[in-house]
């Protein structure tokens, strides 16, 4: 190996490429019906509620609860519509063989299956129901530090220690927080309007249920620092003392 001068050793120090596993929480659009007008309205509403969240956000299309295994006739239009609302469809999940082929033609990835799917379509036990079958809650015993994110997928979240400012906790179900909360709490993140937040020491930067949110400045002052239950009624967040 020839002697390398001091100048070139710096460039050779680190490899040019690295392949690593990344972990991302990606919004998933569950499609049970191919009514494109209804979908258009639905997407418009979602984006209106959290515009910055959805702008240029990756999106996965979940077909696991679509009643047919046939590819959707207007699938290309649906994909285009999602783009039109500012999101970027990156893949499909829970799709049948034919639907996956269709997705491949549109250059969409096939996302890894959910743990309870066997490679076949899962038929929903109660169609149109927002709550999946009961899964044990995710219990977090350590404080959630600034910059960390926790997502309790398909279940409730129980926090035994605090949530620091700059941290983000999310659940498809309810959130029960026994420690002081100074970060963001988002319950019912996949349009579960029945989700609630139970918090013993409220000081969150932002609270949200099924996408309807309020920032710290707009929280009712009488509940700051105290035990509060937050629920969603008529599309508005309700605060009640616990």
């Amino acid at each position, binding site marked *: 190996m020839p002697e390398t001068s001091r100048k070139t050793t*710096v460039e050779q*120090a*680190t490899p040019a490429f690295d392949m690593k596993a990344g972990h991302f929480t990606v919004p998933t659009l569950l499609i049970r019906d191919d009514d494109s007008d209804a979908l258009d309205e639905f997407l418009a509403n979602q984006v209106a509620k959290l515009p910055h969240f959805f702008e240029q956000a990756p999106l996965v299309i979940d077909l696991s609860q679509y009643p047919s295994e046939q590819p959707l006739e207007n699938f290309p239009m649906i994909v285009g519509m999602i783009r039109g609302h500012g999101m970027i469809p990156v893949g499909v999940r829970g799709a049948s063989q034919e639907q996956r082929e269709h997705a491949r033609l549109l250059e969409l990835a096939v996302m890894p299956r959910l743990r309870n799917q066997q490679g076949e379509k899962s038929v929903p036990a109660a169609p149109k129901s927002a709550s999946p079958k009961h899964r044990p809650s995710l219990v977090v015993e*350590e*404080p959630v*530090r*600034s910059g*960390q994110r926790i997502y309790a997928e398909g279940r409730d979240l129980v926090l035994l220690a605090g949530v620091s400012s700059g*941290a983000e906790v999310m659940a498809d179900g309810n959130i029960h927080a026994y420690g*002081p909360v100074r970060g963001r709490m988002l319950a019912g993140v996949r349009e579960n309007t029945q989700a609630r937040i139970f918090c013993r020491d409220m000081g969150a930067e932002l609270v949200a249920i099924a996408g309807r949110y309020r920032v710290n400045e707009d929280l009712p002052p009488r509940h700051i620092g105290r035990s509060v239950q937050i629920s969603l009624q008529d599309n508005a967040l309700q605060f009640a003392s616990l």
Partner: protein
Amino acid sequence: MARIIVVTSGKGGVGKTTTSAAFAMGLAERGHRTVVIDFDVGLRNLDLIMGCERRVVYDFVNVIQGEAGLRQSLIKDKRNPNLFVLPASQTRDKDALTVEGVGKVLDELSEDFDFIVCDSPAGIEKGATMAMYYADDAIVVSNPEVSSVRDSDRMIGILSSKSRRAERGEEPINEYLLVTRYSPERVHKGEMLSLEDVQEILALNLIGVIPESESVLNSSNAGVPVILDESSNAGQAYNDMVDRYLGEELPHRFITLQKKGLLGRLFGG
């Protein structure tokens, strides 16, 4: 096998280098073979605080790149034969540090030293994550002030996810909190967070409280680790901190408001 300790914070300017120097000197004074490494490539300060800036020939990056051996690069402290300094490069940048390179140097140092103190740069990018990667213990330094505390909190989260122990699922890094620049007067006036406030947010084992003290600046100007200034409160607090690290249980001093008598006000303290 040496114990590797990282001194980190997130926020800049809170006292990491001051602490690294004092802590390393404290361990050496108690008879342990100690080396302190400056990980702040391009913005080195440890050599100034240790008073060896005029004896730097080779640095950490030279060793990683194989341009110099460890023996040639380590600077022996003139006051204590147990203590050595490995300075950072001033002309290179952080990309010169690699995980494997750093690992090899630490392995070699482990053969001869009891303690390896890693002085982390500020921030949460490569320099800081490199300094903490191999750590067994972490001293998280924080001022009793909101932005420093939040940055420390962020850093604690990173310690639990980006260290080698975290990646391998081993026992996590032992974390300690060191509060620096504490002023009971300002806490009393409500200008500064109290220890209780800081503890409530960070929830970490408190290993020491270093009071605000002019001796810190004087020591760094003189190139002497402040722990050697036994007349200063900060120096004494650092001594307590080293003893606590080594297992002694000591009450925290300099945390209550002193009512100064006339003599106290005349002669300062």
